[in-house]
């Protein structure tokens, strides 16, 4: 047993942190937040050049064939820097969906493009308010092609293709479809979200050409498995973000004086930050477990993933909220970067299922692991 990253992984972390502090400073996040672009295309190009999009894709498909332990290191650093790029959609969701469910032809077509960053993929599940279920899906394949409406779709306008969850009459009631977005049957409009450093859209399918990804009627279970995997990667981003928010709060508290002394010397502030540290640390330790389960293909993945995800949601949202509180009025300004963490923490927290979804999933997985 060994509960640490290997030396190469620590080196990768150092390199990633250095790269992002240079190429993704607060001003880069702000540029997307303030501007019209859906994402930072220049950063995306550089990230792809670094090979990050290729991390776990096997070499035969143009990837680097590295492990998930490398990918989680990158995820943590991207979370820490609140990177305004479609990495989670393309790498944690679309790439994973293809790796798990694609035919050889589908993999041969898409994985090399995903690895090089030339293609961006996304994942379209939500169709509006409330927790998605098989019976709530109205998107489905018809004789004329795929019809339906997905909202919100993260990085939809940045993407070349989407993995779409649609209803079907067979099997578990759902299928995954791979849909190329540059076609007549697909239209998109911008949807404003609370984190517009990441573009979102409403995606309408009107007789769109679509191909099955995986078996017809095997989509719901494929999606559940996909979310388990993505949960670990999202959790690492969230933990990176949570630590960055804690550091920002600490640095500000050390330098801000009130009543003749640093606010960092007031116990109400100290205990608040200690609580952040505790949540972050427990979340991180659970993320180690998740990373290992993901990488080793362990049967414990559903439990490990949900545990990592719930802890990471709680830690990141708490850190982002209390970071603003620690800054006082300054924290509530557009000008200060506290808002980046606040926006992104909440976006990531609902992104692949809320805290409630994952709490329920955790107990279900616990029941399957321990009670069966």
């Amino acid at each position, binding site marked *: 047993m060994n509960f640490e990253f290997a030396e190469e992984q620590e080196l990768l972390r150092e390199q990633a942190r250095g790269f992002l502090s240079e190429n993704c400073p607060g001003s880069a996040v702000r540029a997307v937040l303030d501007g019209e672009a859906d994402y930072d295309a220049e950063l995306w190009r550089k990230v792809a050049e670094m090979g990050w999009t290729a991390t776990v894709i096997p070499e035969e498909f143009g990837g680097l064939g590295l492990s998930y332990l490398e990918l989680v290191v990158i995820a943590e650093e991207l979370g820490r820097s609140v990177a305004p790029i479609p990495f989670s959609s393309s790498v944690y969701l679309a790439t994973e969906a293809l790796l798990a469910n694609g035919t050889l032809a589908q993999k041969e077509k898409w994985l090399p493009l995903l690895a090089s960053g030339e293609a961006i993929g996304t994942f379209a599940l939500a169709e509006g308010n409330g927790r998605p279920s098989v019976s709530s899906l109205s998107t489905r394949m018809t004789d004329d092609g795929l019809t339906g409406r997905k909202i919100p779709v993260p990085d939809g306008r940045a993407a070349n293709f989407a993995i779409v969850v649609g209803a079907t009459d067979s099997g578990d009631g759902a299928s995954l479809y791979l849909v190329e977005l540059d076609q007549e049957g697909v239209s998109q409009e911008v949807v404003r979200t609370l984190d517009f450093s990441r573009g979102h859209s409403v995606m309408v399918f009107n007789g769109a050409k679509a191909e099955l990804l995986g078996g017809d009627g095997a989509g719901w279970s494929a999606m559940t498995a996909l979310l388990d995997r993505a949960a670990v990667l999202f959790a690492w981003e969230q933990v990176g973000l949570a630590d960055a928010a804690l550091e920002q709060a*600490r640095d500000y508290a050390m330098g801000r004086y009130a009543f003749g002394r640093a606010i960092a010397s007031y116990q109400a502030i100290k205990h608040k930050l200690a609580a952040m540290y505790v949540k972050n640390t427990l979340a991180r330790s659970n993320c180690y477990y998740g990373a290992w389960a993901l990488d080793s293909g362990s049967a414990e993945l559903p439990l490990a993933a949900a545990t990592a995800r719930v802890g990471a949601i709680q830690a990141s949202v708490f850190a982002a909220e209390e970071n603003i509180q620690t800054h006082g009025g300054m924290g509530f300004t557009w000008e200060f970067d506290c808002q980046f963490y606040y926006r992104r923490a909440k976006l990531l927290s609902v992104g692949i299922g809320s805290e409630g979804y994952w709490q329920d999933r955790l107990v279900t997985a616990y029941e399957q692991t321990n009670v069966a």
Partner: protein
Amino acid sequence: MDFTDTQEEAAFRAEAAAWLKDNVPSQDELQGMNELEIAKMWQQRKYDAGWACIRWDKAFGGRNASAIEQVIWNQEESKYDVPGGFFVIGQGMAAPTLMTWGRPEHHERYLPKLASGEEIWCQLFSEPAGGSDLAALRTKAERDGDHWIVNGQKIWTSGAHYSDFGIVVVRTDPNVPKHKGLSYFFLDMKSPGVEIKPIRQLTGGANFNEVYFTDVRIPDSQRLGEVGQGWQVALTTLMNERAAIGGGGGGVNVDTAYRIASEVMIDDKPAIEDGAVRAKLANWYVQESGLRFTGYRSMTAMSRGEIPGPENSIGKLVGAPKNQEMASFCMDLLEMSGAIWDEKLSKEAGLLQLSYMGSPGLRIAGGTDEIMANIIAERVLGMPQEPRMDKGIPFTEVPTGNN
């Protein structure tokens, strides 16, 4: 990163498991024995077979095991309901302090008997005037040739009544700032002038005591560290205390809560089907597993030679309130019957009520929640102390209150 055993670790685990299977005493064997007798018998049995204090040097009864082997042993031993609490202070706190600050003859004389459970140690730190603010203690020691004469009072001393030795911090110079006037000793609890009076706890039990010292003579050879260096030596003990206590152990965990929630009903359906119940269990599971893996991570760090640091405060800071909340919540699930505390009538034989009544003590003993949060803020995050009224002035001039 690898959460599974290497070949050697698997072999070690199998060896440990096999030994435990053959040697954990049966209920029959324990007939008529009290808890202390059972604990001593179990400890001696482990010692004789080389399974006591396994990380210690072979010469002192250990087996030079690695930190990871310690994790494995703990996992395997915790599958059985065997006692160990009596030895936590001696093995987990006094022993590492002896190892760091004691002389070879101390090691040879005391460590093996600590490992075998033959001798039990207690911790005489807290006083009426000094708990969180330990360095405010007043018990004084005056030099008399190659002895020290100790007068004063300790309080909250767990297990003093069954202990053979104690570690004690005393004031040897009241005229210097308070942290500089302390010295650290260990003493025989049977020394003339030591008087032990049990204190009844809110649980009804009486595990902690007042300990009075009247002209107690401690040989200078039982001093650890220099005269005036007692605070530094005490910090070694306290650092190890945090690692030793960890999450507080025992009590109500997710497995217990899950069992109860599956058995009791809310609106004619098992409580576990209720979304709010599931959410709470999930949160506690996250804490439990987070603590476990945080512990493992610091074990990996220790196996590289790092000493347990202030981050170990997390265990108690999370574990103790969690225990209290879980016990409270599980009693709520029982509705009106949650109040019944009777081994025959209560679910889980009264474990919930016992845990609930005991957990305020967990949140105070070994450093309160607030002190743990201070430690994390100051020692881990590097935030400044609050302004203090007791710095840089002689101990005798430090302000005091009337409680």
